[in-house]
């Protein structure tokens, strides 16, 4: 796409990746994504981040609409993940920059990712500032939001912050600003990105939001490296949404995830859902093979309870459930209650194994679960409904305690 002027002499020079569905190998991006990069034209010309290597041609074409690449003076590297630094080597060759700015952690990662010998790297610590002429750029390290090297770059004269992956969303659109698209979908893609990428660093998010408040950063535009750009009132909106997601206050909603062989566990899950509904808890039932693990995490972000089900298979649980748990554990969901159900034929390891996973993930396990040999009977399903009510009551108590 052609560049878009965002403010006088500040341009979007990014890539819209309409076809991306597998985001970085672990998450789905059902509506594509963008790799946002920015150009600031002042007495010095600065390029903020680049693009994924396979889009380098398109990237330099967009850039060349505005300047000759060799006229770029500074490269600012806010984040080194290859979807933003993949075209960096080519950018260094084409632009021959006077300086390349990155964070202290960024300098370490750069040397491991690329052949940086003779690159004019200048390490900038948090709070450090450079002049572009009429404007300046101040840097704020945001380690682990979401990599050690991550940083924000802020132009006080324009009240613009380049926020790297923070506040990003995976959504390929021809529109550039959040106020040009539907709010409900925007909120959905913002949550999806947070749930699958930012969530484990929620404490860092809260610290960063406090820092933004403490520094009294005036914000007219927040420009993330993916998706729609935020301006005007949307800046306060996105900061508020990030605080809510990072605080993770439990909500009266449950996700029930399961796998099943001959539908016994499936019946039990449906009965638990009925019990939860009796307690006024909204439910979402998700078969682990009908839903990608990243879609399950997005649903879970907004839910205070997780119920899991698996039959016993070869003295353990079914493999897709184990894969989901491995993924979920890394994302460190907060403030959830949970429980487990499952059927078995001749040995009954499923429920204890599921509970062990829930505990490892940090979920408060309610009771000891319900397990059933062979087929669930009417009484088993009644026990599952009662268990659903018990989990619902525990969730309501947690909401009251943390509300």
């Amino acid at each position, binding site marked *: 796409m052609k560049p878009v002027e965002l403010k006088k002499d500040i341009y979007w020079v990014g890539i819209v990746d309409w076809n991306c569905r597998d985001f970085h190998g672990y998450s789905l991006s059902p509506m594509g994504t963008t790799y946002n990069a920015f150009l600031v034209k002042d007495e010095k010309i600065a390029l903020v981040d680049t693009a994924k290597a396979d889009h380098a041609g398109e990237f330099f074409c967009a850039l060349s609409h505005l300047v000759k690449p060799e006229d770029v003076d500074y490269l600012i590297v806010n984040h080194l993940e290859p979807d933003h630094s993949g075209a960096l080597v080519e950018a260094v060759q084409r632009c021959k920059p006077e300086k390349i700015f990155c964070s202290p952690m960024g300098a370490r990662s750069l040397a491991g990712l690329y052949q940086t010998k003779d690159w004019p790297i200048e390490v900038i610590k948090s709070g450090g500032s450079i002049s572009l002429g009429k404007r300046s750029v101040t840097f704020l390290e945001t*380690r682990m939001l979401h990599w*050690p090297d991550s940083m924000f770059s802020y132009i006080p004269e324009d009240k613009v912050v380049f926020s790297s992956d923070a506040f990003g969303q995976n959504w390929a659109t021809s529109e550039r600003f959040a106020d040009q698209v539907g709010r409900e979908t925007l909120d959905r893609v913002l949550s999806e990105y947070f749930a699958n990428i930012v969530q484990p660093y929620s*404490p*860092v998010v809260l610290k960063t939001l406090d820092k933004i408040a403490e520094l009294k950063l005036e914000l007219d535009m927040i420009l993330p490296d993916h998706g729609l750009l935020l301006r005007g009132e949307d800046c306060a909106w996105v900061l508020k949404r990030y605080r809510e997601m990072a605080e993770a206050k439990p909500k009266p909603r449950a996700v029930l995830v399961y796998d099943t062989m001959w539908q016994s566990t499936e019946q039990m899950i449906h009965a638990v859902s009925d019990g939860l509904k009796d307690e006024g808890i909204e439910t979402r039932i998700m078969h682990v093979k009908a839903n990608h693990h990243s879609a399950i995490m997005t649903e879970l972000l907004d839910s205070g309870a997780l119920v899991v089900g698996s039959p016993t298979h070869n003295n353990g649980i079914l493999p897709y459930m184990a894969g989901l748990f491995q993924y979920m554990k890394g994302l460190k969901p907060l403030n959830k209650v949970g429980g487990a159900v499952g059927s078995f034929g001749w040995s009954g390891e499923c429920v204890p194994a599921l509970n062990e996973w829930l505990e490892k993930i940090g979920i408060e396990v309610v009771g000891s679960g319900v397990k059933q040999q062979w087929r669930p009977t009417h009484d088993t399903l009644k026990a599952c409904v009662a268990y659903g009510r018990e989990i619902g009551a525990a969730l309501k108590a947690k909401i009251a305690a943390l509300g």
Partner: protein
Amino acid sequence: MKYVCNICGYVYDPAAGDPDNGVKPGTQFKDLPDDWVCPVCGAEKSEFSPES
């Protein structure tokens, strides 16, 4: 005893210390200065847990 950073997973090993940041090998976690932070992610000492 080794301590793990709850944010990024870095392990502080007293035997190794953190020489890049002026902490000599042999320094116990409790003896690290209060303003010492995780060399990987910048988390404060209070974000560390004993390694299990």
